[in-house]
């Protein structure tokens, strides 16, 4: 008996040790490989072969593994086997290995496994995923390669976008795409066809928006009003005189004030005003009752033309229209600002898609060179976004594009660049004119380029997010009443460490603001 017990405990201990050590080994490897590898290669490359004016070196043939989400269309597969292959070979002496995963694996899931197990690949990232992964040492530092390998991209994409994907001064992801991006979600995207149907021409205030709802509701009682549960941005101009912008769920800044003060959003009187507005909408039915339990349904309803308005961005009216016109052929979409007056639009600089390269990549510079190709010039932009001229698309005398295939190439929402993008024939001139001047009165947020290091308040952050989902979200979406539910929620937030979290945020932000060159 005793012998058997010893044997078992020995075995158990052995298994535990192997399991633990394999995990920590991997983490350690990834971390330690990350930092030194790129820099040493960079210096090697730069000194060895100064090809032409730049330091780019394409002598060694390499294979680049690019991970995308959604799937590969038939046409993309065809050109990947021929035209695309030849182009990439010729331009940067590389071969592409395009792999696809479902969207559920974005920013976690298998992408995390691939990163943590040290595979070599590149894929898109957002700021949250970037800061998480960089702190684990999983992304390659691409700073040394931008100038030599992506000169065209650098001039075709706004510098603010590059800054947005920096951490501690290092470039960890390369932005691709450059589009009018200010005031994202600050506008109301309205079904213009319905608006005209009820005898209105435009919407300029909350009162008019509600009038629009009432009139359409009277005519089409089965339609829902607002197809989202979040109007924080959209209604901002109505419930405050400040010009607010949000860093995350908990923290806002007033872009109109020249200071570095952070606002604890949920404790502010503005949040109260906003929550009351939303609660009014919910009670009135502008936000449908099912929104509390089935949020995905809201977007589905919007997409089949059963909703009246939705938060807008500069490009949403043309991006979103295709699915709606399938169900309602006469549908038209138009952006409006509610009571904005002369407050400038806020640009965060992070709206564009960016690519990271995993830390173990042997040739990170070649990935950067590939991203450069995507937005190098009009010709290549057309090729990657629309396919082959006269086979996949035609361009008329006005420069408008007509797609001959419904197959997608490189996702156009990712590629979209003001310098190169083409509008379809059915987009109105007015829209294009408005779009061209969209960013004219925009200011860059004072938070642009700031990335929070959450190491010290990780626990607080996790707890706060828990409280947010369970208690705060229902209040902010108006499903429950602020006055009844907020006092208890505030207690929970405080217990979760809201004060410590905001203090740490404020400390880092003040420090960063002080060190930032004033422009």
């Amino acid at each position, binding site marked *: 008996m005793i012998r*058997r017990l010893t*044997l*078992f405990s020995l*075995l158990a201990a052995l*298994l*535990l040790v*192997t*399991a633990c050590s*394999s*995990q920590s080994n*991997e983490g350690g490897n990834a971390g330690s490989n990350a930092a030194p590898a790129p820099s040493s290669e960079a210096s090697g490359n730069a000194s060895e072969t100064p090809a032409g004016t730049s330091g780019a070196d394409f002598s060694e043939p390499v294979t680049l593994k690019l991970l995308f*989400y*959604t*799937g*590969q269309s038939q046409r993309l597969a065809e050109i990947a086997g021929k035209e695309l292959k030849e182009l990439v070979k010729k331009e940067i002496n590389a071969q592409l290995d395009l*792999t*696809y*995963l*479902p*969207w*559920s*694996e*974005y*920013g976690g899931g*298998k992408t995390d*496994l691939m990163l*943590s*197990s040290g*595979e070599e690949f590149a894929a*898109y*990232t*957002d700021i*949250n995923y970037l800061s998480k992964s960089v702190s684990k040492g999983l992304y390659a530092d691409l700073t040394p390669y931008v100038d030599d390998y992506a000169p065209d991209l650098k001039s075709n994409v706004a510098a603010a976008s590059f800054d947005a994907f920096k951490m501690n001064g290092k470039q960890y992801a390369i932005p691709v*795409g450059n589009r009018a991006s200010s005031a*994202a*979600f600050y506008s109301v995207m309205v079904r213009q066809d319905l608006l005209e149907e009820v005898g209105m021409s435009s919407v300029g205030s909350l009162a008019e928006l509600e009038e629009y709802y009432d009139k359409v509701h009277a005519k089409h009682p089965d339609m829902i009003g607002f197809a*989202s549960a979040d109007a924080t941005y959209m209604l901002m101009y109505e419930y405050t005189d400040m010009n607010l912008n949000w860093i995350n769920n908990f923290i806002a800044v007033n872009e109109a004030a020249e200071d570095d003060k952070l606002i604890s959003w949920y404790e502010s009187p503005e949040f109260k005003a906003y929550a009351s507005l939303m609660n009014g909408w919910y009670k009135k039915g502008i936000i449908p009752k099912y929104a509390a339990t089935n*949020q*995905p349904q809201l*977007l*589905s309803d919007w*997409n*089949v*033309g*059963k909703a009246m308005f939705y938060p807008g*961005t500069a*490009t*949403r009216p043309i*991006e*979103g229209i*295709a*699915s709606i016109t*399938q*169900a309602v052929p006469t549908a038209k979409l138009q952006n409006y600002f509610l009571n904005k007056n002369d407050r400038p639009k806020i640009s965060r600089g992070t*709206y*564009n*898609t960016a690519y990271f390269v995993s830390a173990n990549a042997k040739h990170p510079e070649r990935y950067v060179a590939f991203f450069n190709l995507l937005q190098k010039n009009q010709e290549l932009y057309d090729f990657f976004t629309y396919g082959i001229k006269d086979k996949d698309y035609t361009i008329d005398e006005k420069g408008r594009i007509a797609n001959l295939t419904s197959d997608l190439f490189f*996702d156009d*929402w*990712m590629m979209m660049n003001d310098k190169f993008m083409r509008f379809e024939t059915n987009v109105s001139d007015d829209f294009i004119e408005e779009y061209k001047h969209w960013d004219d009165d925009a200011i860059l947020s004072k938070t642009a380029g700031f990335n929070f290091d959450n190491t010290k308040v990780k626990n607080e952050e996790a707890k706060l997010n828990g409280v947010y989902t369970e208690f705060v979200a229902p209040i902010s979406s108006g499903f429950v009443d602020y006055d009844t539910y907020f006092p208890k929620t505030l207690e929970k937030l405080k217990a979760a460490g809201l004060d410590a979290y905001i203090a740490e945020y404020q400390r880092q932000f003040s420090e960063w603001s002080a060190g930032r060159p004033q422009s």
Partner: protein
Amino acid sequence: MPYKENRALLVSFYVAIGLFSLICLVPFVLAVSGSLSTEAKIAADGYSLLPRGFTLDTYRFMFSSKTEQIVRGYANSVMVTVLGTACSVLVTTAYAYVITAKGFRYRNFFAFLAYFTMLFSGGTLPWYILSTKYYHLDDTLAGLFIPYLLNVFLMYLQANYFRSIPHEVVESAQMDGAGHIKIFFRIMLPLGQVGLVTISLFYALQFWNDFYLPLMLVTDEKLFTIQYMMYYMMANIQFLASGNAARIGGAIVAPPLETAKLAMTCLTVLPIAVLYPFLQRYFVRGIIVGSVKG
């Protein structure tokens, strides 16, 4: 009369079960009728139990644009199910035989070894590294069933059937000079047949329904199983609908058509739905036999 009482009870049972079955059936009927409806009607009026504006267009569309993928998906699923079931039944019964063999000194040790993995696992990351870096199961057909070869629960189930076989049978065979291989194939397997059928069914169902292994180990479209194609489509729709897409570029991409989604569901469920009525009695019988004798 007890008979009358029984009868009343029976009737109420039948009614209850009947109602319950109807409720279970509703989602299937909705899926089938949805896949046979026109997209515009579904968008406008929602689902219904009878198809709205009956049409076969969705299936026609799917088979005209995706025939090759669907057929390949089916082929892969069938292959994985058949190969996977055959291999895993062999491995499972062999393991079960070993831990029930009376003369084998370390049988408890091996039983514990299997049991231990039921309670503790190394986690996903070590599993992933082991599968891809050491066993190189990524992008291979083998990768779609090898990680599931031994299901410990089913192994114990099978071990229980083996234990229910009187030891004297084995002993007499041994006296006649039979070795373990002979005993295993000629005596244990034929006598443990009911258990064999049960675990085969469990395995087959598991392999048919699995989308996790393709998700983790396969990126080559040629190896996609029909379940994974389905999961892929649903995952994309869910992501786009959840608003997460806004984080990386504010895209609203038109999700695949509602009817296509439902048609895909029907295609995936079809073979199981057709086979299940004929096979399910084995499930019930198998489990009962084990439980009485175990």
